[in-house]
């Protein structure tokens, strides 16, 4: 059981918001020590694993290209294109974003993100769609619902699309871990079998965003009933 101390260090370190790299390193060092490894054994194991897992950082190859494209207005153009899609409801705006986010992730594009897309673009568009329909200022609880779902769509698309890409960090890690365990697995097989989950993530997401629209309608009905009641007492 003492070997689980590394797990404990990670849990405590992250919940207390300590610097994450040093939490992870300490967990590794302490785990090595309690299981009887010498300092040099631990350093060798650490260096070895870090070097053999360099492939996880291959994304640095894409940074110069993305950076250059951003300098020439990549994000602005992407925003413009998404902004051109005529959307009727808040839920549909979020559906469209989830779909394209998942597709982009499946192609290995690092286009999305909460700061770059959700706050400046998806949430304002979804809110605008509802506002256009309601012709009044939105209630706080309506805004909270749209915000939560906009942020969730980014995560669904990102998480469940990424493993369909052949050079995704996730499937490269799977390959690495299984190789250590003595199994050679093909990236292509893994990418293919990530597709069913990607499909269900879209399906459940769409259902959720459809239900969100209905919930927003119910809130609207309730609030107008309340308004009528309020008006009634005045009459």
């Amino acid at each position: 059981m003492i070997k689980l101390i590394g797990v404990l260090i990670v849990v405590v370190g992250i919940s207390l918001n300590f610097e994450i790299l040093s939490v992870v390193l300490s967990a590794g060092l302490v785990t090595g020590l309690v299981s009887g490894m010498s300092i040099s054994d631990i350093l060798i194991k650490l260096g070895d694993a870090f070097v053999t897992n360099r492939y996880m950082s291959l994304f640095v190859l894409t940074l110069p290209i993305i950076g250059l494209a951003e300098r020439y207005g990549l994000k602005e153009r992407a925003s413009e294109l998404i902004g051109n899609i005529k959307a009727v409801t808040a839920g549909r705006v979020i559906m469209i974003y989830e779909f394209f986010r998942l597709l982009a992730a499946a192609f290995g594009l690092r286009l999305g993100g909460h700061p770059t897309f959700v706050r400046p673009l998806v949430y304002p568009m979804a809110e605008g769609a509802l506002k256009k329909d309601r012709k009044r200022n939105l209630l706080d609880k309506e805004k909270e619902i749209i915000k939560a779902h906009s942020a969730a769509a980014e995560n669904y698309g990102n998480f469940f699309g990424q493993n369909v890409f052949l050079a995704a960090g996730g499937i490269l890690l799977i390959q690495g871990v299984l190789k250590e365990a003595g199994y050679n697995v093909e990236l292509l097989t893994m990418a293919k079998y990530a597709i069913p989950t990607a499909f269900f993530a879209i399906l459940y997401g769409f259902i959720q965003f459809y239900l969100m629209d209905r919930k927003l309608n119910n809130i609207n009905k309730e609030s107008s009933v309340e308004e009528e009641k309020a008006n009634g007492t005045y009459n």
Partner: protein
Amino acid sequence: MELTINHVYVLCGIISLVVSYLTFTDENHSNSIGTGVFWGILGIIFVFGGRIPSIFNGILVIIMVLISLSGKVSLSNEYSESSLDFKEKKSKSLKNKIFIPPLIIPTVTFLIAQFTKYDAKVGLGISSIVALITAFIITKEKPKEVGHDARRLFDSISSFAILPQLLAALGALFAAAGVGEVIADLIAGFIPVEMKIWSVIAYTVGMALFTIIMGNAFAAFSVITIGIGVPFVIQMHGANPAIVGVIAMVSGYCGTLLTPMAANFNIVPSALLEMKNENGVITKAQWKVAIPLFITNTILMYVLGF
């Protein structure tokens, strides 16, 4: 000449070393030494990591973590970035052509992996060179500027860039110490893993639970796979390692949707959107998809994995 992954690593190393050099010579950077050394070490490990003794690599990793801990990996006060005006003007003149370079990366990588003897990693190296040359042709930018663009993105990712590799190293140390066995024993003690369906449930539940604890499915993957996936699902019941591996990973991602420990995905966004409830992304939306998707994944593993 036969291309190998080592050539791709050298390319990554060169990019890191250029970023390091530009950081050292940046007069507007208050931590230019610390940040420059950090990217420099990363570059050295990329280029020479395979040739120098492991113990030195281990020491270099510890130095990187210490630099990060001391807060010296930081942003510069000024990057040579284009103005919003320039971006909007270029966006109007280049139109959708600006999407070509980023789209070349996945497309060419896929084509190389599918139709040549090279795998996706070497493919990524080749495609990024093709994409970069295309980007130069489309934008007519000077090659010098691209170093600054790369540096801006390196610094925005900051020391998190090495987190996946460090977590993999943690997984290796956990594996060497036998942490997986302890957890596997615990779970095997509670769940009748000799039945195929229960071994699958142990694997997916283990992934989701451990991800909720660690806040990171990558960290959970090596521990739970070595501890439960390999001995029970793959060895005892003969599952296909590639298929159950990838489904286990996405089961872990369902855990990511449920945990405040994954702060960058769940907590920071609610702050960014100025939500009243900091856990609102999880409690108002994500759990309702995470739980059915988790159950679906468990069924998919059982149906497709054997």
